[in-house]
């Protein structure tokens, strides 16, 4: 499955979209997915906040992610 990265998270990961094949087992809870991503890219863990968007909505840690969902990593926002 594909994860979208934006802003500083894109710089940390080095690209806007990463395909995860066998590294992550789906379904997975949002909290566990975040932990996996931080393990893989430790600099993500240093951000003041890190949220996951599930199909364009903020997700809570206990939500379940399937391989068909659109997932995005949301570093601290700074619009406006």
């Amino acid at each position: 499955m594909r994860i979208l990265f934006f802003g500083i998270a894109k710089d940390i990961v080095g690209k806007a979209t990463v395909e995860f094949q066998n590294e992550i087992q789906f379904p997975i809870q949002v909290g566990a997915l975040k932990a996996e991503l931080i393990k893989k890219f430790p600099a993500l863990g240093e951000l003041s906040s890190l949220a996951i968007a599930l199909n364009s909505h903020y997700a809570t840690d206990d939500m379940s992610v399937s391989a068909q969902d659109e997932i995005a990593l949301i570093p601290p926002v700074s619009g406006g």
Partner: protein
Amino acid sequence: MDINIKIVSEIDTTIGYHYLAHEESGGHSIFIGSVRNSTQNETVHELFFEAYESMALLEMEKIAKEASQKWNLQKVIMHHAVGTKKVKEPIVLVGASSAHREACFEACRFLIDTLKERVPIWKKEFFENKKVWVTPHP
């Protein structure tokens, strides 16, 4: 309530009243944010904005609806720019109309405060010798 939400490459700063006007509205509060020439005493050359567009539009819609539950509003507008913006160029325009001025002022402030907290848009600052993603600390 009518809601007008857009992600645009250029903010049209002239349309706020035209959109917000309504025969039941006596008050219209508009906020426009733009690029200023410095931040924390460093000279800023330009900003670059990136949005997760599908989500940003949905999140702005949620914020507009929350505002309409808190206050009795006729219309809400929320436009945000993406791309490169130079000093004095507008970045964001939000506004609300209501019968009396209290509601539109409070709603307008809520719109911009909440947009800055929640809408997935990211700003990169270009200084003389460096460029950095702005990552606000809580």
